[in-house]
């Protein structure tokens, strides 16, 4: 399969990201996010684009949905054989697509709604168990990759520009209250279907503009907790990091952001409040392996909403905006206008400080 189709000319660009969350859980039409992504065409080069939608499988809302990318015709049955040994398959079906002119070399795309098998769980945390299932598939089930594995959400991605990828996956048929999208300009690794963004693990999904100079450190750090990077790109590790920090270590989103983009030691030295200074010191000493170095701007999705985070020196752009119940995060403010008109309020994301939009119900539950 020709996965490294490079265009015969160089396009100067950088990745483009956009997230839209309706905080009342009202559906965000897919055409809105596609329009916003089309506006940032200059930021990608056709070597990868993708979307994550939240709230799209209400009829299977309690099952984990595995989106499979299979590299050959036998992939689906190999995966079925493996899955039957570890999960109850509640339902499985093709991910619907339509022939689209610029989209080719597509993998086999199949979705599986599963639950861990009780007899295999043996008291283990079901989500730890699922992480292990996903890692095992990506590593051991030949030609099979899991694009997403959360409940009531799914990742749709491939090699192409954002508009044909959306058309290919028939995104207009899904009702999502949150869409997060990416257009890729790969810098260090080739463009292939599994390497397109978003990346996801359980409820978390991420899109990333930038490159992680700390990738080796981060990869080894998450590997010590059982996460294996198999997708040939640095961005993958961020989704595992979020699962590790927020779910397993039970950090808040703000604390996880502090682990990934902590203030420099020089800044910690200047903090006068002793309690805060001690907290910052402990975080830096505890999480050197979680520190994401180098330029990045990330939009992450989860069951309760959407988060934006940039590196500590703001080496990649990220803007947030609000309009009514909708929250937006994007590489360019123009993409937000293109997606939903002029926002009521917009502001640049501050380096290293997360901006979060939560579902209103999540806020009420916390209050």
């Amino acid at each position: 399969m020709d996965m490294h189709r490079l265009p015969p000319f160089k396009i100067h660009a950088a990745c483009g990201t956009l997230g839209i969350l309706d905080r009342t859980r009202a559906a965000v039409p897919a055409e809105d996010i596609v329009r916003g992504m089309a506006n940032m065409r200059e930021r990608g080069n056709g070597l990868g684009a993708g979307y994550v939608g939240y709230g799209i499988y209400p009829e299977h809302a309690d099952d984990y949905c595995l989106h499979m990318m299979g590299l050959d015709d036998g992939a689906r049955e190999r995966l079925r054989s493996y899955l039957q040994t570890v999960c109850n398959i509640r339902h499985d079906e093709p991910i619907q697509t339509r022939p689209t002119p610029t989209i080719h070399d597509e993998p086999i795309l199949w979705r599986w709604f599963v639950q861990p098998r009780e007899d295999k769980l043996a008291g283990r945390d079901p989500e730890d168990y699922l992480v292990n299932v996903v890692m095992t598939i990506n590593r051991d089930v030949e030609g099979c990759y899991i694009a997403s594995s959360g409940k009531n959400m799914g990742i749709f991605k491939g090699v192409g520009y954002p508009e044909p990828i959306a058309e290919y996956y028939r995104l207009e048929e899904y009702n999502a209250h949150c869409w997060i999208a990416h257009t890729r300009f790969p810098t260090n690794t080739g463009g292939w279907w599994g390497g397109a963004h978003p990346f996801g693990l359980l409820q978390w999904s991420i899109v990333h503009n930038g490159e992680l100079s700390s990738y080796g450190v981060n990869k080894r750090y998450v590997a010590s907790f059982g996460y294996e990077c198999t997708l040939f790109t640095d961005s993958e590790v961020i989704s595992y990091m979020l699962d590790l920090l927020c779910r397993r270590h039970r950090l808040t989103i703000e604390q996880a952001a502090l682990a990934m983009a902590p203030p420099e030691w020089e800044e910690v030295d200047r903090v006068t409040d002793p309690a805060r200074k001690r907290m910052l010191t402990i975080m830096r000493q505890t999480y050197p392996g979680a520190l994401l170095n180098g330029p990045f701007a990330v939009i992450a999705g989860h069951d309760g909403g959407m988060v934006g985070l940039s590196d500590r020196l703001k080496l990649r752009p990220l803007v947030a905006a609000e309009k009514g119940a909708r929250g937006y995060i994007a590489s360019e403010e123009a993409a937000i206008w293109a997606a939903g008109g002029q926002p009521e309020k917009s502001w640049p994301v501050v380096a290293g400080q997360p901006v979060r939009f939560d579902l209103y119900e999540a806020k009420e539950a916390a209050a």
Partner: protein
Amino acid sequence: MRIDASGLHYRQLNQQIKAAVAEGETEFELVNVCGHRYLGSGIDQPVNIRVEGIPGNDLGAFMSGPRIRCSGNAQDGIGNTMDDGLVVIPGHAGDVMGYSMRGGCIYVRGNAGYRIGIHMKSYLDKEPVVIIGGRVRDFCGEYLAGGKLIVLGLDQPAGEPLVGKYCATGMHGGTMYVRGEVDPALLRPGVSATEIGDDDRQVLRDLLAPYCAEFSLPLDEIVGGLFVRITPHTARPYGQLYAY
């Protein structure tokens, strides 16, 4: 000339503007602008361009003469290597504004982002001027070699710093004026922050008069505030680095 930018790629839009400038058109009104890049770029005539909507990155890059007035916010890279002319932003500006700028003026009413005025320079009668109404973030005036960079700190919450970290790193020319206190910890070595004198106040009055007129702001009140002037100790801060 009025151009509806909706549906136009930035190349088409910029080609239309340049073709009309070549025909002698001097007044432009661009409507439904949404992310169109390089507006005004490469034009060397003092034409007027009104931008309705949100302009894309590198607004006014490499331009030499046009006066661009926007309707609200603008994105990253405004005035990249700009040679002459004016850019007016009533809202906020993004990162890397005035990068390597060597002439003309950029006026922002709101805040601006990271890396503002990096390596601006002046030569003979050319002196770039960047004025920000609100505050700036990290790396403001990094490697500043010439020109004037003014941060007014208007409408800011009390106690919020007006400049970010690494301010004036490697600065070796030009002047920064900040209307308010500057925490010395935010400045890098090799620069001095001092209170301004009467000469400076006159310089500021001259530079701020057209800015205040543009945004209907009270000139006397703004010029009368506390200003800190940041200047480099030497024009060759690294002169000894390789020749000790």
